[in-house]
């Protein structure tokens, strides 16, 4: 008997998962409940446990490979004897090759699982002709790039590289030698149509001599224009989701200024009275949840050209961590009191910073609050966390001259920036929602009425 291990669905929004690392090898025995691999999902790493005891019969998905939820990623067999057999029984997703009549199908399939289609080597993929030419011209193949969308370097690429090497006039050559300068050190701008003349070398020397510092700067800017930053899993997911949302969703951002005087006073009063520390975020989440209660159209998901109004008000809060942006969700905020919201926020933020968020902690959001008030940001255009249709960006509370009645007074104000999915909601109702939120913030007693 064999048991298929599938890519689990760990959150509502999870559509695919990546195998990070296999904790067991093919053939290893596994206990029920023993972790056999680690996967990364939307925003966290998770261990997948064996549902049955036995032996890991076949690994069907390699490390760093991403597969859809529900796809078989491994097989657990009951007996050691079955280890070799299982791969042939599965393999519906394994690339089928034309099997010759004299080759047993099982062998063929097993091979296709084990064998990578591409050779893995650090050597450069170049044809023998390209190598011979490169040797002849004394060109390092590392510097040559393949043309025409190919991935292999062929002779014409080397020829092109050779043709692009700048010509140096004999006089220029002499000057370079005199001043002990390498041609590579001379910035491209001194070359005219691929040729380096003695005048150009002199120009370069002059520029270089103006100040040693200038020369240094030029060198640095020419040589080090960029360095590759390690792409973390969170970065990758954020990049994918942001790009998807930004290109798919017609974003509109309304900005509205709110007077924060009462809001600040309320928070200070509460903090004086209760043992739990209430942040502006807690109070904002509370206010937003109450506004959403009265405005169900904003508490919705837009999926497959349909709008789904959400029963629960689950508010995501954008948290900046060492690993990048994560958005844990305060569940059923609409039904929770301020104290519960604060407690849950504290717990989620803690877990976010430690990287301990479970998929359930960051899935199921219906609206998101992103507060950049900690910085001198006045307003910004937040990107919608799909499939939600609204996100509130909150800027810094600043003291500004305001017209109150007919007088100019200094008041603490803050900009509320609501980005919404115009497919799901129009500008006017979105403005109404923002207006309602502004009223709740400016007159917080409305929160309890």
């Amino acid at each position, binding site marked *: 008997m064999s048991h298929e291990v599938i890519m689990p669905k760990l959150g509502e929004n999870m559509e695919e998962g990546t195998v990070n690392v296999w904790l067991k090898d093919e053939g290893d025995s596994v206990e029920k409940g023993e972790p056999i691999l680690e996967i990364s999902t939307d925003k966290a790493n998770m261990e997948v446990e064996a549902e049955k005891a036995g032996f890991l019969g076949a690994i069907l998905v390699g490390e760093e490979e991403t597969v859809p939820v529900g796809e078989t990623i491994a097989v657990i067999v009951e007996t050691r004897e079955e280890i070799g057999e299982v791969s042939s029984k599965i393999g519906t997703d394994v690339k089928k090759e034309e099997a*010759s*009549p*004299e080759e047993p199908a099982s062998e063929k399939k097993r091979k296709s699982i084990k064998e990578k289609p591409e050779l893995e080597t650090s050597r450069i993929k170049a*044809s*023998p*002709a*390209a*190598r*011979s030419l490169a040797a002849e011209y004394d060109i390092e193949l590392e510097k040559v790039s393949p043309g*025409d969308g*190919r991935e292999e370097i*062929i*002779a*014409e690429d080397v020829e092109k590289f050779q043709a692009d090497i700048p010509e140096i006039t004999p006089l220029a050559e002499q000057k370079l030698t005199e001043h002990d300068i390498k041609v590579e050190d001379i910035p491209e701008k001194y070359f005219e149509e691929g040729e380096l003349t003695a005048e150009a070398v002199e120009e370069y020397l002059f520029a270089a001599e103006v100040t040693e510092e200038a020369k240094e700067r030029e060198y640095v800017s020419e040589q080090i224009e960029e360095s590759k930053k390690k792409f973390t899993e969170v970065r990758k997911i954020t990049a994918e989701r942001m790009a998807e949302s930004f290109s798919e969703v017609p974003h509109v951002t309304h900005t509205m200024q709110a007077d924060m005087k009462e809001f600040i006073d309320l928070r200070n009063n509460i903090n004086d009275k209760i043992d739990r520390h209430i942040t502006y975020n807690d109070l904002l989440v509370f206010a937003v949840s109450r506004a959403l209660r009265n405005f169900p159209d904003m508490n919705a998901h837009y999926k497959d050209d349909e709008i789904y109004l959400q029963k629960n008000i689950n508010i995501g809060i954008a948290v900046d961590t060492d690993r990048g942006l994560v958005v844990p969700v305060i569940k059923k905020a609409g039904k929770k009191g301020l104290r519960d919201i604060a407690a849950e926020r504290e717990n989620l933020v803690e877990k976010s910073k430690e990287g301990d968020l479970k998929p359930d902690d960051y899935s199921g959001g219906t609206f998101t609050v992103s507060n950049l008030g900690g910085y001198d940001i006045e307003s910004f255009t937040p990107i919608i966390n799909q499939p939600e249709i609204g996100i509130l960006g909150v800027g810094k509370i600043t003291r500004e001259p305001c017209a109150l009645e007919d007088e100019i007074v200094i008041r603490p104000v803050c900009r509320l920036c609501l980005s919404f999915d115009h497919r799901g909601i129009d500008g006017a109702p979105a403005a109404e929602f923002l207006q309602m939120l502004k009223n709740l913030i400016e007159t917080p007693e409305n929160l309890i009425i």
Partner: protein
Amino acid sequence: MREITIKKALNEAISEEMERDDDVFIMGEDIAEHGGVYGVTEGLHEKFGKNRVRNTPISEAGFVGAGLGSAITGMRPIVELMYIDFAAVAMDQIVNQIAKIRYMFGGEVKVPLVIRTQGGGGRGTAAQHSQSLEAWFTHVPGLKVVKPSTPYDAKGLLKTAVREDNPVLFVEQKMAYGFSGEVPEEEYTLPLGQAEIRKEGSDVTVVASAYLLPRAMKAAEKLKEEGIDAEIIDPLSLVPFDEETIIESVAKTGRVVVVHEAVKRSGFGAEIASKIMESEAFYYLDSPLKRVAAPEIPVPYNEKLENHRMPDADDIIEAVKKACYLERIK
């Protein structure tokens, strides 16, 4: 110049050699009154009589062995094996006796024997009468293996084979008997082991022969329209093999497509590929060598399946384009 078919060219070669040398005779199944299953020996029986144009029983091991016997006693027999598939029946004679005798007798005997046979598909003769087995014999030291493509080289090479003091397996293609081409009236012979450049080109070397040569030529024409200039080389003789011509061509073009009718696996294309890889031409290769050959299945009797199995011009074009990076390499 006059044009004749391969069938006629072979007939002339046998006739001329029999006229030239009384020791030359021919034997095989149905070759006398019937003129051979594909008509190559038509009229020879009438011309040379039953002693020199001899029908044999259906006993390949027997008459191929008899050919060896008469060869080592001074005759120059031409033995016709009706189908190369039947060589399997005479394999001990061919591989263990004919190919070895001269060596094992320290060169004291000569084996001036030609085994003429024909192979290949295209005529609906099914799995046991359509194979292309020439590579089997190239693996055995002591045998020469010749494979003509045109009437001109069929005649010239067969005459040389008859005059050769070592055994020669002369492999014709059944569908190519009707190919016609220019053949001079006057006598000539062609040396074994000399390839023919059928078309000069600069972009890719295509190696093809016999029944597939016209298909390769057609492919080259189409490729020319797309700006690819193919050079087509016909080896003509597999043993001895003209490495130099192919290597020079590959060094010039940097790309190779080897075409043959035999199945790809362990076909002679593999040997040609190895010869290229082992040579100086390796350093000029600019894309992986491609082989266009039959899939590893028996030749089907069904006409459509048989045609599907046989490499055609489109297969060659596709391989050439891959070799030229015009399509991704599979």
